[in-house]
């Protein structure tokens, strides 16, 4: 909260007034941020055009009303013109006014349509970088569909999980309170990118103001948007469709970097993925210490937003796992709810995790926070449970 308290210090009534006067004005954002993509520039321009038209119209309306309020009042001795509606203007205004408004409408709609045609549909037959953006309660998953590594003889797209970082874990060099994430979405500058949006649970919306992209993530749908990135930088956004408890904690961080840096980063991601896959494929018995350590890390990133770091959950929305009937009861039921989730609740099926990840999390849940069942769940137990589930 350090950043906030600093901010609040500056927030006396006086600095507020000074803010109005313009000194602090630079900090206060009043309009769209500076666009970082060609399409965002187009959108910025149409926004400025329509705001300008709206402002002019508003001034005209205010001017007429103001004039009338000043001159046409009884206290000035003005005598009401009882025949005003019988003048030629009164007779014909019902058609004059709509024609004028139609003219303005067509001006706006015409420019809007032009911009729309430029930004709406993904350019065809061009070399685009495809990124699948998957919304989850309450994190983002990015899949680089054009970059893959071979795992178990199958190509797997490079995948990034991006989660909110609490302020105490976010370093100085981050986007700040409610903006910092553990892994940003890295993209190369100068490239056209196509985003494919979908969701794993409820509705979300991917919104990055600098890129002027906003699209709903809808389960069962894949929708698309695209951008042509024009400058490097770190751009923050967040989920824009109410998605439940932690809707305000779904930040998006996009890092647009030079092509070479992107390549190097991509190489690093692939190595990490391969290393994780190799570790997961090891056929060995993991010790309690090993599993608990991995389990804590995995649980804290993947499960704690709902069940909390201390396992106490946030009842009634998210049950406590401490001493719970499932977590301290028979193992198969525990495996079942984690692997298959529970339909109609926020507990989704976590079967996309590796056997090792699941084994560690489940071991951790069964032994942490005083659950102390002493149960050790190995990756092969998970594998068996999966095949069972298939049958």
């Amino acid at each position, binding site marked *: 909260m350090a950043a*906030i308290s600093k*901010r609040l210090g500056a*927030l006396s009534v006086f600095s507020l007034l000074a803010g109005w006067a313009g000194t*602090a004005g630079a900090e*206060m*954002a*009043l309009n*769209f941020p500076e666009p970082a993509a060609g399409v965002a520039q*187009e959108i910025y321009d*149409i*926004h400025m055009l*329509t705001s300008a038209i709206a402002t002019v119209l*508003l001034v005209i*309306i205010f001017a*007429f*009303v103001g004039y*009338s*309020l000043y001159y*046409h009042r*009884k206290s000035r001795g*003005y005598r*009401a*013109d*009882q025949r*005003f*509606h019988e003048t030629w203007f*009164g007779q014909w*205004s*019902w058609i004059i*006014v*709509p024609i004028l*408004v139609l003219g303005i*409408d067509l001006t*706006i709609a015409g420019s*809007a*349509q032009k911009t729309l045609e430029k930004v*709406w*549909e993904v350019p065809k037959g061009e070399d685009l970088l495809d990124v699948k953006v998957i919304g989850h309660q309450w994190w983002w998953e990015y899949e680089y569909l054009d970059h893959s590594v071979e795992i178990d003889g199958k190509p797997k797209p490079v995948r990034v999980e991006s989660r909110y970082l609490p302020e105490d874990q976010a370093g100085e060099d981050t986007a700040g*309170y*409610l903006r910092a994430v553990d892994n940003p979405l890295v993209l190369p500058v100068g490239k056209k990118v196509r985003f494919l949006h979908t969701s794993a649970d*409820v*509705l979300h919306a991917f919104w990055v*103001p600098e890129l002027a992209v*906003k699209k*709903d993530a*809808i389960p069962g*749908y894949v*929708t*698309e948007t695209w951008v042509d990135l024009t400058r490097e930088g770190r751009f*923050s956004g967040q989920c*824009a469709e*109410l998605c*439940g408890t932690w*809707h305000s904690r779904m930040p998006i961080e996009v890092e647009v970097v030079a092509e070479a840096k992107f390549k190097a980063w991509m190489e690093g991601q692939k190595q990490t993925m391969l290393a994780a896959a190799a570790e997961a494929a090891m056929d060995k018995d993991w010790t309690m210490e090993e599993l608990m350590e991995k389990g804590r890390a995995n649980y804290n990133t993947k499960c704690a937003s709902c069940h909390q770091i201390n396992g106490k959950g*946030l009842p*009634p*929305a998210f049950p406590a796992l401490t001493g719970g009937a499932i977590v301290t009861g028979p193992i198969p039921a525990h495996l079942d709810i984690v692997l298959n989730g529970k339909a*109609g*609740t*926020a507990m989704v099926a976590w079967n996309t995790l590796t056997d090792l990840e699941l084994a560690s999390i489940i071991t951790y849940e069964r032994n942490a926070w005083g659950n102390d069942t002493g149960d050790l769940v190995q990756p092969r137990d998970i594998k068996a449970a999966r095949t069972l589930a298939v049958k």
Partner: protein
Amino acid sequence: MSTATIDLEHHGEHEHHGPPKGLKRWLFSTNHKDIGTMYLIFAFTMLFAGGLSAMAIRVELFLPGLQLLEPDLYNNLVTNHALIMIFGAVMPAAAGLANWMIPLMIGAPDMALPRLNNLSFWILPAAATMLILSFIVPFFPGGGTQINTGWTIYPPLSVQVGMSMDFLIFALHMLGISSVLASINIIVTIFNMRVPNMTMMRMPIFVWTWLVTAFLLILVIPVLAGGITMLLFDRHFGTSFFNAAGGGDPVLFQHLFWFFGHPEVYILILPSMGVLASVVPTFSRKPLFGYSSLVGAMIAIMIIGMVVWAHHQYTIGMSLGAVSYFMIGTIIISIPVGLMVFNYIATMWRGAMTFETPMLFAIGILLMFSFGGLTGIMLAVVPADMQYHDSMFVVAHFHYVLMPGAVFGLFAGVFYWLPKWTGHMYDEKLAKLFFWINVISFNITFFPQHFIGLAGMPRRIVDYHAMFTEFNVISSIGGIVFGLSHLLLLYIVIKTVRGGKQAENKAWEGAKGLEWELPSPPPFHSWTTPPKLAAS
């Protein structure tokens, strides 16, 4: 119009009996005035309930960080603020005005279907109880989770919610039934109970606005009812209307919701626009400008308003053709709406204006509603809406449309007709004070929200990045003052009911219309002999 020669000998003398005594008077009432009063009292109570949740929201958003509210409680308040204000405050208040004024204005002794009238009102307290229960059951043991979906109750999120969602669905059904019954009554009354010689094109515009509103309600409420029933089935009976995994479509719910939801905006606004058609000519001392074009504009709004709903859903991934259609349709609505605003300004033009409280509200409405309408055109522009959608800019926009367009219009109507209803003039000084505090604090609350929205603050978030702090502080301060200012309104109304300068039959110098021919307050049974209206 209803400027007419009236047979003054034949009204007011038919007080065969007064109202029954005690609780029975209200419980079994079939009298349009008593039912109108009950609607208004109910709406006023709900206004305070919805206002409390709004103020809690603003207190939470005063500073970044989680101070007062848990996230789900915040979401719950966001949901109930909207639902209480729309279904509890604005719609019943407008129905209260309709009950009181339509019979008086068209020279009818009562509504056409008085027992139905009783039923439509008395469903409301029951429905409101269900509605409020849906927000508080989660605080009882075993009550499940809070409604964290917003008033749009989009699935799949609304399928995750506990039993409180079922309470809500039931409450919405009852509220819908109440509205539809009231609408039927209003339509039948308007079609059958006008005094001889009052042709459709001589009815006061307020009556016209309610006729259009009633038709809109009957057309769209059943669609909402269908949508929420399907939601109920998805929640409990294993259907998959909105569940993609079962072959259903989550977007279908949004279409059903907004097919109701967009016309609902006009349902909220039109009656208030009708109030303006009485208030503005009165205090401009000049006939209403453009009567027939107002009627035409309203009918156009009703028709176009029903076919542009998906502008609330530009981000769902519609085709280029579909979004173009919805964009152009939405922009076109500015023609009838603009014509309406124009006619009111032209009514003021070259009038001899005085500025009593109803007129102050009317002028405020014309200016602020125009502003809200213009940001509405901006929002209609699809590419720009990629930024505005679901941001605080939208929150600012619709409060500028609905607060002036609906709520201030109701305030104007209350001040305008309060002398008629109670027989007392309200305290003009206090009322003007209320107007200024109310309107200034309203602008302090909502104007800054445009900026934070453009700068990137989404709506419906419990906590925000520090860059949005300053404007949220301002907005919250405004919001608290705005909320509290309504206590002054309550005080003024109570004071007027209790006493005050005796109001004349025609409480306002420039007032025209049948309601001003009756004594203030009118007898319990009025127009038992229809007034005589000269053939035009």
